[in-house]
């Protein structure tokens, strides 16, 4: 069979291949190269990401990601609603670990308003953030294994995740999109039964996760599929804005829980796993080690949790208790004002970032003293992590692209905002 040259192919076919909305110019198309569209809908369950790949045979020469298929207009909506009304929207940012986003947003608004939640509320927030990290990493490892071909790990990971979602149900009232934190604390208290059940879960989690790891860590196909694929060096990683497990897989020991401590993380004893190779396998090992560290932190949090209130007693800034609203006049008025007109933080700006399971989630809030923010910018980790894909896929094959996207673990809900 002879190779097709430019003269054999009708010029209209070339035009159709390049398409109207592709922005990379290909000179001498169909000489050796073709353009492949890994469209917004594809089986790797990482959401609606469009990758335009320029291929030479099966090797990727260049890649252009296109975002915007899930752009819901968060920042514009935030300018029209009060700080408290925005909490359910933060759930849907990184939609695999909703409590972590709630915690990040509540911390940012509290920094702006100049209040701090009571200690028990902060411990509960830490507990939820770490459980959310475990949820997220279980799905990430499961999805990576599923993309590479190991379907069992995905189902086992989801089984463990269902147990954690049962705890979210018991504590927050909703199993998935929790909307649990409020400005000044959390919505409701945790019962001691729930804490006992969480300890029981953590006790059996270690050996269940060992089972999952046994399927993967010694598996020759898994290792050959991921080793040496998608290597990114230390300087490139920092320059491109990588954060989270992706950065720690490239040898940079940087974790916002240690660098700029928030909540009570400086009193917890945990390690930060770092691997230097920078390939997909290193990022997988970082995530699986972080799962174990999160289990350790959850144990310590439940040990040390103090008794007390879960909501700050500050009438102008934090919602009053529901039992008092129905009986006392002051609380009723404050509740009305806070819900309808919003808390009025002082004029100013604040940027607060926390260590989300995917990386650094930051909220930049500009306030003009009103109940709504004047501008809210969400610095999402997946947006910055996706920037590195054109660099990482060069020279690899199409099936490696799937593994690379899986190991970066992007969530399009926060990348597209």
């Amino acid at each position, binding site marked *: 069979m002879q190779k097709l040259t430019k003269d054999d192919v009708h010029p209209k076919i070339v035009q159709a291949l390049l398409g109207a909305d592709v922005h990379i110019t290909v000179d001498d198309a169909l000489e050796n190269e073709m353009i492949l569209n890994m469209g917004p809908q594809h089986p790797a369950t990482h959401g609606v990401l469009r990758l335009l790949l320029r291929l030479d045979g099966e090797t990727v020469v260049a890649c252009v990601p296109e975002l915007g298929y899930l752009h819901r*207009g968060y920042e514009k909506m935030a300018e029209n609603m009060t700080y408290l009304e925005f909490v359910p929207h933060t759930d849907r940012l990184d939609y695999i670990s909703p409590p972590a986003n709630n915690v990040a947003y509540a911390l940012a608004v509290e920094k702006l308003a100049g209040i701090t939640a009571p200690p028990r509320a902060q411990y509960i927030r830490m507990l939820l953030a770490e459980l959310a990290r475990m949820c997220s990493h279980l799905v990430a490892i499961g999805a990576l294994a599923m993309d590479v071909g190991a379907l069992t790990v995905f189902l086992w990971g989801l089984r463990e995740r269902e147990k954690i979602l049962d705890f979210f149900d018991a504590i927050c009232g909703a199993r998935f999109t929790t909307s649990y934190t409020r400005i000044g604390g959390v919505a409701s208290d945790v019962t001691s039964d729930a804490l006992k059940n969480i300890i029981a879960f953590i006790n059996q989690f270690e050996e269940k996760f060992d089972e999952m790891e046994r399927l993967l860590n010694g598996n020759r196909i898994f290792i050959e599929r991921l080793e040496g694929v998608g290597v990114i060096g230390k300087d490139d990683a920092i320059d491109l804005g990588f954060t989270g497990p992706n950065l720690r897989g490239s040898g940079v020991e940087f974790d916002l829980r240690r660098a700029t401590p928030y909540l009570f993380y400086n009193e917890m004893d945990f390690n930060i796993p770092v691997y230097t190779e920078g390939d997909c396998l290193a990022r997988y090992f970082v995530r699986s080690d972080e799962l174990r560290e999160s289990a350790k932190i959850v144990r310590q949090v439940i040990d040390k949790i103090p008794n007390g209130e879960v909501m700050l007693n500050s009438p102008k800034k934090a919602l009053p208790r529901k039992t008092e609203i129905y009986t006392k006049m002051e609380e009723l008025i404050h509740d009305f004002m806070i819900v309808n007109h919003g808390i009025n933080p002082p004029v100013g700006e604040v940027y607060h970032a926390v260590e989300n399971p995917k990386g650094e989630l*930051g909220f930049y809030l*500009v306030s003009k003293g009103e109940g709504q923010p004047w501008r809210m910018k969400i*610095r999402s980790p997946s947006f910055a992590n996706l*920037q590195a894909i054109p660099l990482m896929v060069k020279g690899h094959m199409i099936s490696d692209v799937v593994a690379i996207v899986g190991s970066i673990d992007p969530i399009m809900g926060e990348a597209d905002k």
Partner: protein
Amino acid sequence: MKELLTEKLTKQFPEITFEVIEQFGELTLKFDKSEIVHVCTFLKAEESLKFNFCEDVTAIDWAVRKNRFTVVYHIFSMENKFRLCLKVDVDESECTVESVSSIWKSANWAEREAYDMFGITFLHHPDLRRMYMPEEFDYHPLRKEYPLMGIPGAIPLPKK
């Protein structure tokens, strides 16, 4: 850290006036937009400061006649664990500012997003096109005059 920073900057750039704002435990520096590349190159290269991580580049629309936009840069130094915020004012009549994507690669997409949402052109950007909205879209959504529900018919829907 704040004293070290202000001392080094005033020594290196004696002709620029820096407006120093400190609130909520964070430091913000405000200066003229023509110097942004020089200041950022210095901040990244200087040994004791080493701001090697650009977290975010964004913009604010103040909806006033003079100096309508402000472009905000959040940069972080991993060694000193210090976060700095830089702000430059951009007027609507000359809606351009130099791009810092040659200094930090992570600013590349962030600036594309600012261009898409606000219409601020970044000069010498390697690939300035829209980020979220389709290329044929004519408006810039995050400007204050663009309505929340959008302009009907701006993006076509497929037929039933």
